[in-house]
C-alpha cells in the first residue's frame, strides 16, 4: 500500500508560468515532508521541506503548502524556468530515520 502518492506522472508548463506539483499521503503520523528534484542519471537533490506544524514554507521561487486535514501537499514553482525540467519526488517521514517517497512527477518547462 503506497503511503505517499503523486498521481500526476507528468506536467508540462510554459516558461514564466507557475508549476504546481501535488502529493497526497495516507499516513496521519507523517510529520515532516520534503521535495526532491532529480535530473536523469543523477541522484535526487533536496529542494525544500516543511514540518507539520506549518502550512507554508517558502524558499525563493519554491513554496510548499501543507494541508493536514486533506493529507495533501503541493510544491509551487514561480516563475518556472527551463532548468526546472526534471522529475520531482515528494517524501514524508514520521521523524524517524526513514523517508517514504512518492513515484515522482516529471515536469517539463517549455519556452
Amino acid at each position, binding site marked *: 500500500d*503506497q503511503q505517499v502518492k503523486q498521481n500526476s506522472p507528468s506536467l508540462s508548463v510554459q516558461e514564466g508560468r507557475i508549476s504546481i506539483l501535488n502529493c497526497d499521503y495516507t499516513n496521519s503520523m507523517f510529520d515532516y515532508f520534503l521535495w*526532491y528534484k532529480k535530473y536523469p542519471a543523477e*541522484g*535526487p537533490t*533536496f529542494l525544500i*521541506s516543511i514540518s507539520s506544524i506549518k502550512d507554508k514554507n517558502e524558499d525563493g521561487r519554491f513554496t510548499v503548502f501543507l494541508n493536514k486535514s486533506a493529507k495533501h501537499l503541493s510544491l509551487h514553482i514561480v516563475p518556472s524556468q527551463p532548468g526546472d525540467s526534471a522529475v520531482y519526488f515528494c517524501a514524508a517521514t514520521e521523524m524517524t530515520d526513514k*523517508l517514504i*517517497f512518492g*513515484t515522482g512527477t516529471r515536469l517539463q518547462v517549455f519556452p
Partner: protein
Amino acid sequence: EADIYQTPRYLVIGTGKKITLECSQTMGHDKMYWYQQDPGMELHLIHYSYGVNSTEKGDLSSESTVSRIRTEHFPLTLESARPSHTSQYLCASRSGTSYEQYFGPGTRLTVT
C-alpha cells in the same frame, strides 16, 4: 554542498558475478542509506546504517548485503548478480540533526 560519491556510475555485468557498489561521503554523517529505484517508480529503501558496525534491512527485501566499517564508507555487495537486480542504486546520508538526506549520483546496474 553535499559530498557523496558512488562508483561505478554504470555497470553491465553477467549473471552470477559478484559485484560491490561503492559509496563514500565526506560530511562525517553517521546515518547512511541505500535505495533501489526503477524508472517511474518510487525510491525503495533496501539498507541503512546508524553508524560504524550498524546495518539494518530496509522496507524492500533485497539479496544484497552492506557493511559499515568506516563512517565515510558504505558499500553494497551482490554475491551473485541476476537480471532481476537490474536497477538504479542510490546511496544517501544525513546528519543526526536534520531529516534531509543527501544523495550520490547513483549506479545504474544492468545484469545480462
